[in-house]
C-alpha cells in the first residue's frame, strides 16, 4: 500500500530520546550546539515547513542535475562562453571564485548542524542542506573547469580561497565565522535566515535574470537551479529564530544585526559589481539598488517583523550606503584591478548617464572619479595599464577586511580606534560595533597592512600582488578594453 507523506513522515522526524548512559549536555555541548543552551523540551516543537522525504529529495535533485547537464551539453563548451561580452565574463569570474569553496564550507557547517542541532527534524533538514551545498560546490567547479585552458583567470574558481588575495582574506573572514566556526544556532540565523532568504536571492535569482537577458543560458540555469535548493533549506531559519527570540531575544537581534551587515558588504562587492558595472548596459533591466529594494528591503524586512525582531539600529546608515558603498568599492577596485583575478571596465558616457538616473542622490559626487580615470587614459593612450592604476598599498577594515570605502568621497567614515594597546581601523560604524561586541573573535586577525608592517608581506604593490596575493601577469585584472574605448577616442 502506498502511503502519503503526511501519513508516515512524523515517525521518521522525531527521534530524540532521553539519554541514560551519558548526559544531554555531553551529547550537545554548548560550544558545538550553540547558545543559549536549552533542554531538548525547548526545541521539541521544531518544525520544518518545507518537508521533503529522502526519496523525494534524490528524485527531485536528480531531475535538477539532469536539467542543468542538458543545458551544459548544449551551451556549456568554452566556445559558447567566448561569445559573451568580456565584462559579463568578468562577472562570471567574480561569482565563480567567491562561491564554490564557500559552499563547501557551508557543507561543513551544515554537517555540524546535522550532528549538534537540538532536534532530530532540524538535524535531518540540515543534512539535506549539507548535500545541497555540496551540489553548489561541485556544479560550478565541474562546469567551469574546461575554461581554464582558454582563460587562466578561471583558475581562481578553485584557487581563490587558497590564496592570500585581499578579497580572499575578506571572504574567508566572513565564511570562516559564518560556516566553518558557527554553531547550529548562529548558522541558522546567519545563513538560513539572513543569507538565503535575502541575499542569495539577490545573487542567484537577480543575477540569473540578468544572465537571461545577456543570453547566458548556462549561467542562468545553474544559478536558478541552485537557488531552488536554497529556497527549501532556508526554511530552517525562521523556525530556529522564533525559538531563539522566545528565550534570548537580545542574542537573536544581535546575530541578525551582525550578519545582515556582514552580508551586505560582501554582496555589495560581488553582486553590486556584476549588476551595475559588469553587465553590458543593453541587458540591464534594474539597478543593484532596485534589486536590493525588491529582494532585501521589502522581503527581508518583512520576515524580520514576522519573527518579532526589529530592524538593525544602523538601518539609516545602511539605507544611505545603498547609494554609495558599491560604487566607492568599484571605483577603488578599478584603479587597483591588478590585485584581483578578473577584469574591470570604465563606465562610458551612456553607462554614467544610466548610473546618474538610477542613483540621483550620489552619482554627481562619484562621477568626477570616472572623469579623472578617463582623463588618465586619454593622456596615456590604450594599453598603458599602470598609468590608471594605484601604486600605494591601501587600508583595510579591521572587521570586514575590505578596503576603507565607507561613506562618501567627501566624507569617508573610517575611524581609528585604540583598545587594549592596539590600533584598529573600521570602515564604518556598524563594523566597529560588531567588532566591539565580540573582540575576542576578531582582535587577533592581521589584515594586509598589519602583515606589511610586520614585514610578512611586501610593501611594494607589484611585489605584493605577485608574491603575496599569488597573481601572475596573465591572471591579474586589467581593463576589459585595455583602455581602448570608442568614446575615449575623440
Amino acid at each position: 500500500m502506498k502511503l502519503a507523506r503526511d501519513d508516515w513522515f512524523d515517525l521518521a522526524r522525531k527521534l530524540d530520546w532521553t539519554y541514560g548512559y551519558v548526559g544531554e549536555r555531553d551529547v550537545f555541548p554548548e560550544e558545538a550546539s550553540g547558545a543559549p543552551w536549552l533542554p531538548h523540551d525547548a526545541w521539541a516543537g521544531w518544525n520544518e515547513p518545507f518537508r521533503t522525504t529522502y526519496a523525494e529529495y534524490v528524485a527531485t535533485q536528480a531531475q535538477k542535475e539532469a536539467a542543468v547537464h542538458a543545458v551544459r551539453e548544449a551551451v556549456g563548451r568554452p566556445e559558447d562562453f567566448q561569445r559573451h561580452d568580456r565584462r559579463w565574463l568578468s562577472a562570471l569570474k567574480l561569482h565563480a571564485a567567491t562561491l564554490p569553496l564557500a559552499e563547501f564550507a557551508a557543507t561543513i557547517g551544515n554537517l555540524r548542524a546535522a550532528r549538534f542541532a537540538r532536534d532530530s527534524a532540524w538535524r535531518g533538514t540540515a543534512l539535506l542542506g549539507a548535500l545541497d551545498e555540496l551540489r553548489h560546490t561541485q556544479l560550478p567547479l565541474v562546469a567551469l573547469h574546461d575554461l581554464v585552458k582558454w582563460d587562466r583567470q578561471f583558475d581562481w574558481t578553485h584557487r581563490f580561497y587558497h590564496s592570500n588575495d585581499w578579497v580572499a582574506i575578506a571572504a574567508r573572514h566572513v565564511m570562516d565565522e559564518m560556516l566553518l566556526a558557527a554553531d547550529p544556532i548562529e548558522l541558522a540565523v546567519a545563513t538560513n535566515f539572513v543569507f538565503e532568504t535575502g541575499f542569495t536571492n539577490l545573487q542567484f535569482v537577480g543575477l540569473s535574470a540578468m544572465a537571461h537577458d545577456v543570453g547566458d543560458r548556462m549561467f542562468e540555469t545553474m544559478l536558478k537551479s541552485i537557488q531552488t535548493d536554497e529556497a527549501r533549506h532556508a526554511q530552517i531559519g525562521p523556525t530556529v529564530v522564533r525559538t531563539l527570540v522566545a528565550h534570548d531575544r537580545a542574542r537573536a537581534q544581535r546575530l541578525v544585526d551582525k550578519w545582515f551587515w556582514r552580508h551586505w558588504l560582501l554582496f555589495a562587492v560581488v553582486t553590486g559589481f556584476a549588476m551595475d558595472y559588469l553587465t553590458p548596459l543593453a541587458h540591464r533591466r534594474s539597478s543593484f539598488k532596485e534589486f536590493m529594494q525588491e529582494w532585501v528591503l521589502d522581503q527581508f524586512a518583512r520576515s524580520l517583523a514576522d519573527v518579532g525582531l526589529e530592524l538593525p539600529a544602523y538601518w539609516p546608515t545602511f539605507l544611505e550606503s545603498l547609494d554609495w558603498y558599491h560604487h566607492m568599492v568599484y571605483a577603488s577596485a578599478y584603479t587597483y584591478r591588478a590585485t584581483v583575478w578578473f577584469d574591470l571596465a570604465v563606465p562610458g558616457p551612456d553607462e554614467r548617464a544610466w548610473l546618474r538616473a538610477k542613483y540621483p542622490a550620489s552619482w554627481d559626487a562619484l562621477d568626477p572619479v570616472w572623469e579623472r580615470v578617463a582623463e588618465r587614459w586619454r593622456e596615456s593612450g590604450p594599453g598603458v595599464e599602470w598609468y590608471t592604476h594605484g601604486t600605494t598599498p591601501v587600508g583595510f577594515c579591521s572587521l570586514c577586511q575590505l578596503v576603507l570605502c565607507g561613506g562618501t568621497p567627501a566624507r569617508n567614515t573610517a575611524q581609528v580606534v585604540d583598545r587594549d594597546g592596539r590600533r584598529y581601523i573600521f570602515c564604518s560604524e556598524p563594523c566597529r560595533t560588531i567588532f566591539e561586541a565580540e573582540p575576542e573573535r576578531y582582535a587577533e586577525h592581521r589584515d594586509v597592512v598589519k602583515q606589511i608592517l610586520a614585514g610578512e608581506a611586501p610593501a611594494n604593490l607589484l611585489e605584493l600582488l605577485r608574491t603575496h596575493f599569488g597573481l601572475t601577469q596573465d591572471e591579474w585584472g586589467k581593463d576589459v578594453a585595455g583602455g581602448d574605448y570608442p568614446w575615449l577616442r575623440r
Partner: protein
Amino acid sequence: MTDGVGPVLEASDGGRAVVEAIRADNTGVVVLDRGAYLRVLVPHRCILRRAAIERALGRPFAFPSDLELVMPAFQGNVTITDDEVVWAWSSSG
C-alpha cells in the same frame, strides 16, 4: 504590496501553470514579470492547490518536489502538505 506573500517562479510552462492555479484560488493576485522569473504576490495569504495546478497542467503534480523544480524563492512562511501549499505571515506587519 507591503504584506504580499507568494512564490517566485521561473518563467517556464511549469511556472506559468502555478501562476494560473494561484489566480484561480486567490483574490488580489499581482504577478510581476521580471523576464527570467515571475514574482507572485497575494495580500496576506496565498494558497496553491494541487488539484488546481493539475487542472492547469493536465498531469499529476507532486508537492513539494514538482513545485521546488520551478520555484527559486518565495516570500512569507510556507506550509506544505500533500494537497496544498500556503504562504502567509504569522503576524500582521
